């Protein structure tokens, strides 16, 4: 059966094998020169943006979320999963939390602008998950349609995510963490548009996403009073559009969430609902429409979860949110430290002798303190 090439093609005596030609010239030298020029330009651009105050930021997407969702089993019961929206991404310093509880794996699963109960439900239904859930909650979310608005992330993880996509996203997040130039914010088309609009190159952005999906906001880079006005206006409109539910009805809805808490606690896990700070007029509106006594203070008894409200803890209460809703990155380590102390107090995180918590210093600093990227960055993150 063994064939010569000429015998393979019937009716042809050709012994030639299809072969593509390579153009004349030393392609090895050409390619190496090309790569060197590329590296020089790449380095130059990177330096240019860095000098102009830009810092790397990771693109947060479904695949990155899926990568961390997949890791919730990696450390068994010593896993802390953070759920919520933008507040928990900005207010909690995962770096500080890791330093305080070095034996614990911290997983950030919050999604900006969306409410977290779909993920809580997913973890509750996942029999392999036995860790601790810290879920950022706000009384006004309960019973509302978009309480499950993170469902598409859960769906993507279960239906579309695979090890290769997760690995690809992991490699990509490392590249994005180290190089400013790969940030889509500095994509050439956007730069040109920005330049055409304002005659300026894009300035450093105040919000940066880290590889672990936590975020850092540097409010010294933006007009804070405008942000405050915008947020107050927005929250006022939201309350007008969605008037609060009567406490009785609200409690019924809250009790439904309790099912998920029960499933996790029955497996040895824990669920903590935490109300993260909002300040000034924002907090006044929150408390006016959802008085703490009538709503939040009943969550623990209805759901069976541990609860922490920033108003109950002096260390948290004294912090001021620059935009009325989120903490600056310089405040996040202190907030995290206070929160960790509360975890220990409430026995949410059991500390074994081997893994005694270490509390690194985290002094509150004003917004005028050195910005992200300055030498203090590592300590603060």
């Amino acid at each position, binding site marked *: *059966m*063994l*064939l010569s*090439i000429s*015998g*393979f*093609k*019937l*009716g042809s005596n050709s012994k030639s*094998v*299809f*072969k*593509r*030609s*390579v*153009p*004349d*010239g*030393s*392609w*090895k*030298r*050409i*390619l*190496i*020169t*090309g*790569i*060197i*020029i*590329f590296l020089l*330009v*790449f380095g130059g*651009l990177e330096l240019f943006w860095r000098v102009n105050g830009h810092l790397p930021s990771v693109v947060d997407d479904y695949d990155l979320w899926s990568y961390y969702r997949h890791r919730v089993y990696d450390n068994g019961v010593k896993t802390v999963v953070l759920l919520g929206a933008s507040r928990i991404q900005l207010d909690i310093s995962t770096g500080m939390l890791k330093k305080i509880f070095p034996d614990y794996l911290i997983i950030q699963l919050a999604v900006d602008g969306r409410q977290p109960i779909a993920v809580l439900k997913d973890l509750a239904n996942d029999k392999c998950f036995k860790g601790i859930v810290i879920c950022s909650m706000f009384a006004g979310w309960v019973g509302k349609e978009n309480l499950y608005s993170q469902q598409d992330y859960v769906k993507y993880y279960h239906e579309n995510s*695979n090890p*290769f996509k997760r*690995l*690809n996203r992991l*490699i*990509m997040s490392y*590249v994005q963490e180290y190089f400013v*130039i*790969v940030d*889509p914010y*500095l*994509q*050439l*088309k956007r730069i*040109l*548009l920005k330049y*055409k609009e304002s005659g300026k190159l894009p300035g450093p952005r105040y919000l940066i996403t880290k590889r672990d999906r936590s975020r850092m906001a540097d409010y010294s880079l933006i007009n804070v009073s405008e942000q405050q006005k915008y947020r107050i206006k927005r929250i006022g409109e939201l309350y007008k559009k969605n008037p609060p539910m009567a406490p009785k009805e609200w409690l019924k809805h809250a009790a439904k969430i309790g099912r998920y808490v029960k499933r996790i606690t029955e497996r040895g896990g824990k669920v903590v609902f935490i109300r993260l700070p909002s300040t000034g007029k924002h907090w006044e509106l929150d408390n006016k429409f959802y008085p703490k006594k009538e709503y939040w203070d009943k969550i623990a008894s209805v759901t069976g979860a541990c609860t922490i409200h920033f108003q109950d803890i002096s260390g948290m209460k004294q912090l001021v949110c620059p935009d009325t809703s989120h903490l600056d990155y310089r405040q996040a380590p202190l907030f995290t430290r206070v929160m960790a102390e509360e975890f220990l107090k409430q026995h949410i995180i059991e500390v074994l002798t081997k893994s005694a918590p270490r509390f690194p210093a985290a002094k509150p600093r004003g917004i005028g303190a050195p910005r992200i990227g300055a030498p203090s960055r590592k300590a603060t993150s």
Partner: protein
Amino acid sequence: MLFNSYVFILFFIIVLFLHNLPLKWHLKKTNLLCASYFFYSAWNPPFVFILWTSTVVDWFVGLYLYRVRNNLARNLLLAVSLCVNLGLLCFFKYAGFLLEGFAALMKFYHLDFKPCSPDIILPVGISFYTFQTLSYTLDIYQRRIKPWHSFLDYALYVTFFPQLVAGPIVRASDFLPQCIRVCKATWNQMAWGISLFVLGLFEKIVVADGLLAPVSDAIYNTCGYPDFVSSWCATFAFSGQIFCDFAGYSTCAIGVAMCLGFSLPDNFNYPYASVGFSDFWQRWHISLSSWLRDYLYFPLGGNRCGILRNNYNLMMTMLLCGLWHGASWTFVAWGGLHGLYLVAQRALKTTVPDFSIWRTTLSKIIFAFLTYLLVSFAWVFFRSKTFDQAFLMIQTMLGMGSKTPGLYLCPMDVYVTVLLTSLIFVIHWSMKDRSLEKIAERVPAWLISVIVAGMLVLIVTLAGEDRAFIYFRF
């Protein structure tokens, strides 16, 4: 695993390293085969079984087809291969479409039949590898080739990862003879292969995804009535996008194969400089159009019969070509429109006298532009999700829109599209009779280095949203 992903780069470095180890040739081929299965299973591991089924069935059918002399037995064997390959294709790709069609037919006869959605996931690249294995069987059936002696080589031919999921659809006679001697790229070949890979990525990431896709998406993915300029721009943007997307994939595939010492044939030859539609189909997705020509159009009778029969053959081939691209009537309409173009061109050729003026450069440029325009016009059916959307686009493109437009492209998108569309046309026209290799030989080395560096910089700084290659769907 996409070519435009970090994980592919990592995978390819490992494969390249293993391929260059001092091992025996059959071990290297086994390595490549395993890598190819691994590459394919990255999408959905169970689908490797479909690939195996197609491979094994055609291997044995090929063997027996050559041994058996009885015509009935030969036809039966061919039927087995056709049933398995086309059956798999029909089940995974067309089940929903066929059910919908059946339900519509029942409705026509006032019978209430509501089929449940089959919810079948389409195995990536199934249209490509089933056509590739079929071509092996059909070549043996038509006594063009003998069965190959090594199953390992044959399995590698079906599964070779650079071309597995989106072509080119390689013929056994082009690939299998390469498996006899050790394929190992020289440094020069490898550097040229990497340069091709960079060029392919540039076409895909920068031109298709970064610049053109947002323009076509802005109109085709949004509800509303676009104005005249926006609808033409979006259509031309898609025209450029699909070329750069698919030609980019093919260029990457050729480059990756070259780094491993293998040669894959060209799949595109500057199609937007075609003068006429038969020229277009000799330059666009060459491996598919030649497959359809050899295994469908010629067996139907080709052009060796009367005018009517010839036109029927053309229409049939193009309608099936449309259907191959996707299980939707809009794809069939796209194929049908191309069939009509070909029929009309043939009719014009026989009726209009052959004046010398047609052969001047200016006339050729005008005809090429007209071809580009009509080809782009046909893409409307390819890009639109529904006929309603396609007809709305056509209405606005012909200036017959009855409603007040409310969907506009921003001026920058219009400029970018006009610039890139013109650039694509000029580049295709100026390079249409020359190969990339010949052009590369004439450009100074330093300039090529600068071009490679420029493409790499733009890949990094102009990357758009991550998108899969369009032809993965087919």
